[in-house]
């Protein structure tokens, strides 16, 4: 079976996020107020062939940690996506 999986990669706490900070700084001028703690992250959507969903997620987690993120600055988590 093929299971849709999403891997979210976010910056670890305490790691500076210049992109998020720059976007946040720009918002008031665009008329968006009351937005704080903006953090930019990445996501990867994929289909994973596995006997069941749990092992698909396991595979995705390994992939997330080994390839899609650098654990020194990033956290990566896998969740199941929706078909489509």
């Amino acid at each position, binding site marked *: 079976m093929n299971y849709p999986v999403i891997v979210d990669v976010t910056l670890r706490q305490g790691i500076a996020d*210049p*992109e998020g900070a*720059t*976007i946040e700084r*720009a918002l008031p*001028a*665009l008329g968006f107020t009351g937005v704080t703690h903006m953090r*930019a992250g990445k996501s990867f959507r994929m289909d994973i062939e596995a006997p069941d969903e749990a092992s698909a997620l396991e595979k995705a987690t390994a992939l997330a940690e080994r390839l899609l993120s650098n654990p020194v600055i990033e956290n990566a988590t896998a969740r199941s996506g929706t078909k489509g």
Partner: protein
Amino acid sequence: MKHIGVVVFPGSNCEYDALAAMGVLGAQADFIWHSETDISGYDGVILPGGFAHGDYLRPGALARFSPVMTAVAEFANSGGAVLGICNGFQVLTEAGLLPGALQKNRGLTFLCQPTTLIVESTKSVLTRGATIGQELIVPINHFSGAYTCDDATYRALEENDQIALRYKENPNGSRGDIAGVANVGGNVVGLMPHPERAMSNLLGGADGRVLLEGFVNAPVGAR
């Protein structure tokens, strides 16, 4: 003497180069800081290369909200000559003044190298002095230079003769080998290569001259 404005966003970095190129061509050129709202009095406007607002979010995404862009849009809509080089091209697409979008290069790396361009149309203010089929060697310097658009837009570009320049050998995965496009009126044009870097044999070639000369000497639009 033509008077050209070079828009400077925080993070722009080719503004001095654009200014120098204008000087070589005998135009008077001045910087326009991005917070300016009045750009009257210019015969043409250049959005130079660089990383406006750090290119954060997407290249051009934050710059298009800079106050000056409202004035640039008005200038463009009234027929004024507007040229976006590299990051300036990205800003113009984000602002909706040119169709399409620029995505990361196919190879996912920044590319700084000479490219050979083929002039596809002489309808734009940039290519009006060149001849169709003319080959020009002009360097590229970008990470997000792959021109992208949907099928309908691409057809429209071809039908309206809006494709100004194509790469002879596609370096970045651009749709249809597109290096530069114009709006329907031909007065707004954007390209990823840097003609201002090809203005002198000391620096490796002067093929950019025919492009920028055409731009500087474009008849002043109905404004």
